[in-house]
C-alpha cells in the first residue's frame, strides 16, 4: 500500500483511538477502533462518527432516515422536494404492507430542475402539492426537504402552511436535508417530530377505553404487524394505531389517547415514545416480538402494566396455546440449524434483539454490527452476546467482506446491499430489512423465520456449487 498525501489538510485527519492489540482486519487506522471483540481489545467500538470518505459506505442519508419512518402511513402521499433522483431511487422500497389504501406506494417529486435551483423551488413545490391534493385527496401530504432544497434555502414550512390553508388537507413539512448529519437516526427523529408536531394530538377519540395502546416503531414490513395485532387484541387491548405500519393519518392523530405506548423498533422510535411521555404523560414499554421468549416476555410485561386479572388469565391461555405445538414444529429446523453460526449486520435494534432468537434455534451469533449505532446500542449488544463475539460499527463493504471471510459464519442477517457480498462468499443470507418476503413477528412469525433461516443455511445448493478439483487443476494448467 502506498502512502499519498492530501497536503496540509493532513493535520485535520481524525486521530484514531489507540488499539492495544493487532487489528482484527486490515483496514484504515482510523477505523480499527470501530471493530472490537467482546472481552478483547476494547470495551465498546467507537461509534457515531462521520463516515470515512472514499469508502463504500452502507449508510444512507438523513432524508432516507425520515422517509423510512413515515413511508408506511398508507393514506398519505410522500412528496420529495428535490431533483428527481431523490424520489426515483427511494419510492416504494419500504416493503411495508397495507390492508387498505395504497397511496403511500406512489413516488412523488417536485422535480427541481436547473431553473428552480437558480430562482428557487417554492412556487413549484406549492403547485405540486395542489396537483397531488386534487388528484388523490390524501390523508396528508408529507413534504421532504432534500440536500438541494436546503442549500437553495426553500422555506418548505411556509409553503406547506400556505398549501394547507388552500387545500384543507394536512401538508406536513419534514425538514430532512440529506447532508444534515452522518447518522440517519437523526432522520428518524425528524420523521417522528413531523408526527409529533403535526399529527398526534390533533383529533378527538370518540370512545376511549382504558385499554387503548399504540404500537410504536412497528412498520409492518412483510406484514409483521399482522402477527402482533391479533395477540394483543386477544388480550383485550385496543390498538389505536401502529406508528407507522399499516396506519392511517386519522388514527395517528388520536394516538395521544393511548394509556401505553409499546415500542418495537427502539432505535427509530424510542425518541417518539419518550416525547409522548413528556407531552401526554403516556408511559412506554420496550417490547420485542421477534423470538419466542421475547414475545412471551413482551406479552407478560404488557399484562403486568395493566394489572388486570382477566387479561392475565387470557395471556396464560394465549401463550399456552400458541406455544403448544411450536417446539414440535420447530424441531425439524432446529436439528438442521444446531450450532450454526450467525453474523448480524442490520439496524441498531436487530443487532441485539435477534441474538436471543437465534439461541432459540440453537444457533450462535458470532458477529454483530450496525451502521448507525450509538453508544447505548453497543452496550445492549455487549450485554447479550457471548465472549469473543466481534462487534463492529459502520463497516464498509470491504470491511464486511473481510470480516465474513475471516469468521466465515453460516449465515448473514442484513439488507439488500449486503446480500451479494455474503452469497458470493458462499455464506447463507437472510434479509431482515425491507426486501424480506415473510413476516417474522409473533409466534407464527418465528416459525416463518425458522423456515427462512433454514432455507438460507441448509440448502443443498451450497454443495451443488462446489467446484470439483478437476476444474481447479485445469485452471492451474492454464496459468502455467
Amino acid at each position: 500500500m502506498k502512502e499519498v498525501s492530501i497536503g496540509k489538510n493532513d493535520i485535520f485527519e481524525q486521530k484514531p483511538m489507540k488499539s492495544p492489540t493487532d487489528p482484527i482486519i486490515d483496514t484504515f487506522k482510523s477505523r480499527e477502533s470501530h471493530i472490537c471483540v467482546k472481552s478483547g481489545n476494547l470495551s465498546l467500538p467507537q461509534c457515531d462518527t462521520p463516515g470515512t470518505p472514499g469508502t463504500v459506505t452502507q449508510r444512507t442519508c438523513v432524508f432516507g432516515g425520515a422517509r423510512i419512518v413515515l413511508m408506511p402511513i398508507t393514506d398519505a402521499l410522500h412528496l420529495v422536494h428535490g431533483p428527481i433522483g431523490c424520489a426515483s431511487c427511494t419510492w416504494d422500497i419500504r416493503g411495508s404492507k397495507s390492508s387498505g389504501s395504497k397511496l403511500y406506494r406512489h413516488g412523488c417529486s417536485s422535480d427541481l430542475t436547473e431553473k428552480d435551483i437558480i430562482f428557487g423551488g417554492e412556487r413549484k413545490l406549492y403547485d405540486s402539492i395542489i396537483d397531488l391534493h386534487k388528484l388523490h385527496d390524501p390523508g396528508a401530504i408529507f413534504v421532504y426537504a432534500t440536500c438541494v432544497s436546503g442549500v437553495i434555502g426553500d422555506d418548505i414550512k411556509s409553503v406547506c402552511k400556505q398549501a394547507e390553508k388552500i387545500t384543507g388537507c394536512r401538508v406536513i413539512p419534514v425538514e430532512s436535508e440529506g447532508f444534515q448529519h452522518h447518522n440517519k437516526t437523526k432522520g428518524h427523529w425528524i420523521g417522528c417530530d413531523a408526527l409529533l408536531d403535526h399529527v398526534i394530538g390533533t383529533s378527538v377519540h370518540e370512545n376511549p377505553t382504558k385499554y387503548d395502546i399504540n404500537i410504536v416503531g412497528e412498520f409492518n414490513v412483510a406484514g409483521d404487524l399482522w402477527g402482533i395485532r391479533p395477540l394483543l387484541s386477544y388480550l383485550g387491548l385496543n390498538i389505536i394505531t401502529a406508528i407507522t405500519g399499516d396506519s392511517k393519518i386519522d388514527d395517528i392523530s388520536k394516538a395521544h389517547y393511548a394509556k401505553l405506548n409499546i415500542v418495537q423498533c427502539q432505535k427509530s422510535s424510542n425518541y417518539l415514545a419518550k416525547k409522548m411521555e413528556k407531552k401526554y404523560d403516556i408511559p412506554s414499554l420496550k417490547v420485542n416480538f421477534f423470538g419466542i421468549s421475547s414475545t412471551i416476555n413482551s406479552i407478560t410485561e404488557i399484562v403486568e402494566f395493566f394489572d388486570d386479572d382477566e387479561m392475565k388469565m387470557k395471556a396464560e391461555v394465549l401463550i399456552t396455546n400458541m406455544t403448544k405445538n411450536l417446539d414440535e414444529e420447530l424441531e425439524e429446523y432446529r436439528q438442521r440449524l444446531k450450532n450454526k453460526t450467525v453474523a448480524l449486520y442490520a439496524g441498531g435494534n436487530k443487532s441485539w434483539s435477534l441474538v436471543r432468537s437465534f439461541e432459540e434455534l440453537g444457533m450462535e451469533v458470532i458477529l454483530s454490527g450496525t451502521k448507525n449505532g450509538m453508544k447505548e446500542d453497543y452496550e445492549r449488544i455487549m450485554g447479550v452476546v457471548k465472549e469473543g463475539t466481534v462487534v463492529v460499527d459502520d463497516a464498509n463493504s470491504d470491511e464486511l467482506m473481510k470480516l465474513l471471510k475471516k469468521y466465515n459464519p453460516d449465515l448473514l442477517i442484513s439488507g439488500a446491499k449486503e446480500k451479494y457480498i455474503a452469497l458470493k462468499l458462499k455464506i447463507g443470507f437472510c434479509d431482515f430489512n425491507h426486501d424480506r418476503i415473510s413476516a417474522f413477528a409473533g409466534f407464527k412469525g418465528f416459525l416463518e423465520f425458522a423456515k427462512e433461516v433454514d432455507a438460507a443455511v441448509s440448502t443443498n445448493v451450497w454443495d451443488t456449487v462446489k467446484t470439483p478439483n478437476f476444474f481447479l487443476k485445469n485452471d492451474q494448467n492454464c496459468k502455467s
Partner: protein
Amino acid sequence: MSNFKENNMGGDSLHGKCHDKKFAVINPTRMCQPMGAVQAMMGLKNAMPLIHGSQGCATYMRFQLIRHYREPIEVASTSLSEKTVIYGGELNLLKALKNISEKQNPEIIGVMSTCLTETIGDDVNGMIKKFKDVNIGKNLPAMVSIPTPSYAGSHVEGYDKAVLSLIKHFARKMIPNNKINIILGNLSPSNLAEIKNIMKDLNVEPILLTDASENLDAPLTEETLELHKFGTSLEELRDTANSNATISVTKHNDSGAKYLEKVFGVKSISGSMPIGIKNTDAFIKSISDAMNVSIPKKIIRDRGRLSDVLVDAHAYNYRRKVAIFGDVDMVIAMARFTHEMGMIVEVLCVGTESPRFKKDLNELIDDMNHKPIVLENKDLHDFGMVLESNPVDLIIGNAYGAQIANRFNIPLFRVGFPIFDRIGAQRISFIGYNGGIKFVDAITNTIIDFYYDEEGYKFADKKLSFDTQSFETHI
C-alpha cells in the same frame, strides 16, 4: 379504413387530458444524472466510481443497481455532512481520493458530482489538480471528473457525460487500430454480450463504451468482490481516438462520438438501437460499411432464424395492443420491433423530451401507418391515466409497471431498469437477431400464458357462444 385510430389522442389533446397535473411527478420513469454515470462506470476495468455528495446518493443508487443485477456493486461516497456543506466539500474529496488510492488503488477513479456539490460550487477539477500537485512523483490512479448535476437532464445524459468525460480524459492519437468504437448505454450484460458476438461474427474488433457484460453478470466467485477485472480498459479508452469509426447504438449517448469526430476525425454514426429486423439490419450495414467487411453466412442464418420465429409467433401477436415505457432509445426501437411482430403500438411513454426522439417517432409513424399515443417527459401516473381510456393487451417496461399491469389485469413484460421483482434482469435479451429470437419467444409465451387456456386454445366457449334472444324473428 386504416390502422389510424378515429379519435386518436395526439400530443395536444393529451395535454388537455392531464391538465389537472402540471407540476408534480408521480411515479417517475427517469432517474438522475449520477445514476447514469455510475452505470457507465460499471463497464470499466479496474475502476472505482466516487460520488461527491451525501451518503444517501451512493447508497440508494447502489441499492437500485444491486437489486437489479443481483451482484455486489461498489460505489464510494465522499460522505458530505453539514460542516462540509458550509465550508465546501474539498477536504472530503481529497480524503476520499487518498483513501481510494491507498486502499483499492484502481487505475481509474471517476468522480461524479451531485446536485449538492454543484449547487455549493465545488470545483472538482481544481480539487483533483490540487491532489495531484501534492502527490507529484507518486503513481496515482487516473482521476476523471464527471460533472453530473442531478437537477439537470436524466440518467440518460449521465451515461452520456460519463462516456464523454472518459474519452476527453484518455483519448490519444496514436497509430490507427482498425477497430470500431461502440457506445452502448445502459444495456443488460446479455445484450452487451450479443453485441460482442456480432462483432466476432463480422470479424471486427470493437472498443465498447462501456462493457459491463462480465462485471454485472459475474460467476459465483470471491473475485467479484474486488475491483472489476473485466470491462473497458484504460488502454482501450486511450485507443478510441485511433478507431475507424464510433457507432452510438443509443443516439442520446453520442457526445463522446461527436468529440472523437471533431478532435480526432473518427467518424461518428448515431444509429437506432439494434432491436428487431430493420434496426439490426441497419446496425450490421453501418459496421460493414465503416469497417469494409462482408457479412458472413452465420449472421444471415441468425437473421433467418429471427424471421422464422416471427412467422411462427405471428398468429399470437397480430394486432395485440402494446404500451411501452422506459428510456428514449429503447422505447422507440422496441416500438418498431413490436410493430414488426404484428402488434399495434398503442402507447409510448418516456420520462424525457428530445427532438431526436420526435424525429425517430415520425419515421416510425410513417412506417407503421398508425399513430400511437406518445407521452414525453411524463411519468407512470400519466401512463396509467392514458391506459384507462386506451386499453392494451400488454405492457413492456421495468418493474415499476407491475402496479399498473395489476390494475388493468394485463401482463407486464419486464425490460429496462430497474427490475427487482424477478430474477435474471442481467440476462434479458433483445439486441441483435439472436436477442430478438429470445425476446419473441419470451413475449409470445407471455401472451399465450395469459390469453390462452392450458391446451393453447383461445377460450373458445366465450368466443363462439351466441345469444338467441337477440335474434330477429321476422324474416
